[in-house]
């Protein structure tokens, strides 16, 4: 899994990565413009406000008159109202941009994921994909909507303040500007170090979470080995380095922030000294001096915040790369343009052009190797499976029994040679056409959150309630429903975890029956199920096998014996094939496998 380690590296700035955001953002030009526009207006009103104080001092207090106070008050109020409106406008547009951009990215990613092939899913952990679909998109959208605008606000505000100061008194303004480079140097020096420690803290934090996980899941082992104290000691060491790193990071901040504040006070002191002198010389009004002091105090915090904001914004590049990396994954199995033209794609199928599927399958001179592995798993393999045949695939765990099924279902395509369905290369038809005719029941049945009814209906979306119930009865899944409190509408829980494995299996059989597929695939379970359910499952399987081309990745002898054709797999290759009795008489690998299987299955039965 080493390849899937999440990391937040800082590579040098790469414009090409950022450009990828363009198409997503371009849909929201108006909101984006609104967000930036209102944001700029906010900054401008923020710059204007100290001027009102200056005006009051100059025109009323120093002039010793109150005439014109009302219009002044109204103008002041108008600016405040304007600012409030800007905040509303900015907030709404910003949120709109954030959520819309996030939504669109998630939508695109999710749709793209539906086209990716099993070769991708087989090697990519779900958590890895999920982080990209949920967290990274959230982060990108949030940073663009809020972090970027914070930076721009600070930029507008600082520039505006300097403009105001330059207009008020350019010589004094230059004195203040001189402090800025000093702050820039300080910031550069500290930000890198703070970033370094923050990263370290994040890593330690995930280690601590990992330790808790291990401490809890490994509790039994720790107890039996009596290493509780040793574990706690290792944990204390970890929290100890967290403690120290936390303090190190805090110390940097504790030096940096007061230093910046102190520098800003230096600016104030200089303004006071120089400005005071100018006032004494009658070259400056007290009002202007006080406004100056307000500006000088006000600009340094935004500068300091912006440094951190920019550093964080640049780190967004990693998130963008993660998302675009997923978008750039190319599906291994793809329908050709001609096929899409005639049969439609997964999202817009042209079902009217679909031919009915009969179920003849032929492997013609097929050579296959997995995209990530070097060795050929099949070499010049040919096999004809007439419609309605039951094919059992047997072999030890991990011998590669799923390969043939993956090929037949076109989850993978042959490296060389062809697979024909009803006499035509299946690449001449769309994936969806084939998949719509396949019923697939997995070893560990997967259900979706929702009711039992919804889960069964997954097999055929337009099925009526009566049809759903009939399908369930056909495989005795109604016995499961009968036990549930809300019957057909009972919630099965996340991934179906409110049901037992056996119950989930029966529901998934019902789902397959409802789909009424021409090709049926059963990846048989070896999990321990009580005898009664076991019998129900057997009956369900028998029901499903009728009149269909079936592939059974089989473990149970009863299932295997019924097969029309048995393929024996060893180390990824088909070593024997034939009917049950023929194979037994050969006294080959199947015979060995059979005896062992027989022995274990019977032992298990006796022990029950």
């Amino acid at each position, binding site marked *: 899994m*080493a390849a899937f380690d999440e990391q937040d590296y800082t590579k040098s700035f790469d414009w090409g990565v950022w450009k990828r955001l363009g198409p997503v953002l371009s849909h929201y030009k108006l909101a984006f413009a609104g967000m930036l526009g209102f944001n700029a207006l906010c900054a401008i009103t923020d710059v204007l406000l100290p001027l009102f104080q200056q005006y*009051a001092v100059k025109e*009323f*207090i120093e002039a010793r008159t*109150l005439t014109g106070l009302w219009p002044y008050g109204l103008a*002041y*109020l108008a600016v*405040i109202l304007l*600012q409030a409106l800007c*905040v509303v406008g900015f*907030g709404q547009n910003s949120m*709109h941009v*954030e*959520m819309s951009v996030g939504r669109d990215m*998630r*939508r695109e990613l*999710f749709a793209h*994921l539906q086209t990716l092939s099993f070769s991708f899913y087989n090697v990519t952990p*779900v958590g890895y*994909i*999920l982080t990209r679909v949920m967290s990274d998109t959230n982060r990108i959208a949030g940073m663009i909507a809020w972090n970027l605008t914070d930076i721009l606000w600070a930029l507008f505000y600082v520039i505006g303040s300097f403009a105001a100061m330059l207009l008020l008194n350019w010589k004094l303004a230059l004195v203040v500007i001189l402090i800025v480079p000093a702050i820039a140097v300080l910031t550069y020096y500290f930000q890198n170090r703070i970033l370094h420690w923050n990263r370290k803290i994040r890593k330690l934090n995930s280690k*601590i979470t990992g330790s*808790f996980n291990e401490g809890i899941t*490994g*509790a*039994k082992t720790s*107890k039996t*080995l*009596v290493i509780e*104290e040793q574990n706690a000691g290792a944990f204390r060491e970890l*929290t100890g380095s967290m403690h120290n790193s936390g*303090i190190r990071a*805090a110390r940097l901040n*504790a*030096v940096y*922030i*007061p230093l910046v*504040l102190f520098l800003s*006070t*230096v600016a104030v*002191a200089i303004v*006071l*000294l120089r400005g*005071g002198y100018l006032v*004494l010389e009658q070259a400056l009004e*007290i009002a202007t001096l006080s406004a100056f002091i307000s500006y000088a105090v006000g600009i340094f915090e935004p500068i300091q915040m912006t440094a951190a904001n920019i550093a964080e914004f640049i780190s967004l590049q990693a998130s963008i790369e993660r998302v675009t990396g997923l978008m750039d994954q190319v599906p291994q199995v793809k329908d050709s343009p001609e096929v899409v033209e005639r049969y439609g794609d997964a999202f817009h*199928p042209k079902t009217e052009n679909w031919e009915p599927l009969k179920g003849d399958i032929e492997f013609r001179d097929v050579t296959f190797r997995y995209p990530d592995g070097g060795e050929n798993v099949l070499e010049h393999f040919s096999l004809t499976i007439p419609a309605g045949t039951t094919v059992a695939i047997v072999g030890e765990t991990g011998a590669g029994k799923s390969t043939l099924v993956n090929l037949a279902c076109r*989850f993978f395509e042959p490296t060389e040679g062809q697979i024909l369905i009803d006499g035509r290369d299946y690449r001449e038809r769309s994936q*969806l056409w084939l*998949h719509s005719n396949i019923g*697939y029941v997995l070893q560990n049945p*997967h259900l979706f959150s929702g009711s039992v009814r919804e889960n069964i209906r*997954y*097999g055929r*979306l337009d099925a009526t309630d009566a049809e759903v119930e009939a399908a369930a009865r056909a495989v005795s899944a109604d016995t499961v429903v009968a036990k549930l409190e809300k019957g057909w509408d009972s919630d099965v829980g996340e991934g179906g975890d409110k049901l037992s494995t056996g119950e989930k299996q029966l529901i998934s059989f019902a789902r397959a029956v409802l789909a009424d597929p021409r090709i049926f695939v059963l990846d048989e379970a070896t999990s321990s199920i009580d005898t009664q359910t076991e019998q129900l499952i057997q009956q369900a399987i028998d029901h499903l096998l009728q009149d269909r081309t079936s592939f059974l990745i089989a473990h149970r002898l009863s299932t295997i014996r019924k097969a029309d054709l048995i393929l024996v797999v060893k180390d990824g290759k088909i070593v024997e094939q034939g009917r049950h009795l023929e194979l037994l008489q050969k006294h080959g690998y199947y015979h060995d496998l059979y005896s062992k299987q027989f*022995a274990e299955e019977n*032992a298990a039965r*006796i*022990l*029950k």
Partner: protein
Amino acid sequence: METQPFRLRRREKLQMIWRYLRPVVWFFTAALVCACLSMVFNALTPQIIKLTVDVILDSGPAELPRFLKNVLTVDALRAAPLQALWLAALAVLVTALLRGVCSYGQRINLSKGSEGFVKAIRDDLFSHIQRLSFQWHTAHSTGDMIQRCTSDVDVIRSFVCNQLMEVVRTVFLIVLYLGIMFSMDVKLSLVSLAFIPIVGLSSGVFYKSISSRFQVADEAEGELTTCAQENLTGVRVVRAFGRERFEIEKFNKKNEHFSNLWIRLGKLLSVYWASGTFLTCLQVMVIILAGTVETVRGEMSLGTFLAFVSYNSSLSWPVRSLGRVLSDMSKAGVSMDRVGYILKAPEETDGPDAEDASARGDIVFDHVTFGYGKQPVLKDVSFTIPQGSTFAILGGTGSGKSTLVHLLDRLYELQEGTITIGGRDLRRFRRDSLRRQIGLVLQEPFLFSRTIAENIAATRPEATREELRHVASIACVDEAISEFPDGYNTLVGERGVTLSGGQKQRVAIARMLLQQAPIMIFDDSLSAVDAETDTKIRAALRENLGDATVILISHRVTTLMQADQILVLEDGKVADLGTHAQLIARPGLYKEIYDIQMSSDDRRLIQEGGEA
């Protein structure tokens, strides 16, 4: 999982916080003192500017504060305005410096305090969880516990270290600034004061009322994540049924719902932000207007006006955030309950008179009856395992064989009957001492995400590499380990190499062997190893076990048959007990299984194993 939410009483919450706060309370006190001092110094700057304006720059009547009167006079300052300006600038710098020092002190002490605080909670939680009974562990879900140990701890930390500090600081700031303002001008101060409850309350009320919406939005996000996750884990089902379009529509609906919730929430939030901005600015404006009127009328000096306006604007933002902080603080109570639930669970403890265990002597189960729930799993089980013998147990799923092991290792406490070793009741022993005497390998062994060497050496960290390799070769895993690029230093688990089930079992066996316990239990611990390796390992074990008492649990007759005695457990009861020869001589479960399993191939393997 607990059925009803666990609640701590208020006093218990305070006690819990205090327990972890007490060792670092001085840091927090120092941080608070520094924070207050820094605010005081901060409050001095407007005073200096006020004096500068009134005394040096303006020519109206002015007065110096009492402490300055002894050193300086207004006239002296006005006589040398340039030097006076230098003095003022210097004063500004000195207060800023002092404030900087205090700010440093505040930050550094706060971080020492909060890091110490959170470390104490985490350490305590971890070590407590290690010491909770196994029964407790099986009854609680891992994910939920981890959440309590991480997110909830963070909420508590933020409550104590940020929110509580923030509240104290803000209250001090309000009192200090209002005090100064009142000393300058009572009328204006009353106007300013009138705004505080309006601003604070409005934000508090808003956050309280909107929190349910936040929750709804969070839930929508959870649903969206679940939808994506289920799609990804069930990708085979989705494809096999050709349900891509259906999935996309489902996801889009939830995606849309979640985004719209937030967009709507954004409308409310931005109105709230705007109203907050408006109120704050309005307050400043009112003070400027009223101050202007007073100053023009001569009731207030220009310097005082400027200083007052400056204090007033420093006051408004903290008040706003106070409302929010106070409403956020209510969340901490729930987190304290959740963390307190773990901390209150009783640890496994031994009585004060518990003794060191000794594994010398026979192990005797005497009329043991035990159940995890209402149904008994073991029913009146009695048998004796002679010291130094090899004892095998055969039984189906749910027959209670693992329960025997749990009881012997005291992972569960006996309910009825007794277990003795060498005539001494198990319950008299200290648990840790007993468990050190018993080596146990589980069917699905747990390896820690450390190096393989560290895993094997878990019970004896000081063991040499030779010792490790020795036990590893007995467990037939030395060769496999040596083939890894990093050998014994290979990391196990997520970030390292994924070991196969059989390799894990063998590493666990090596780990147990290093423990050199006088009682060794193999709980179906070679199930994932193929029969051939199984035979090899057992041959190596036989040579190296010495005089240890060995308990084997297995389905494989080849494993069982070498034992001195075999116990057949059926439905929680002793169905049969005897040697291999005795058991195959009479009808029963053992014989049936023997007949099935002893196919020609296996017989051949046994003979080879026996000769080796």
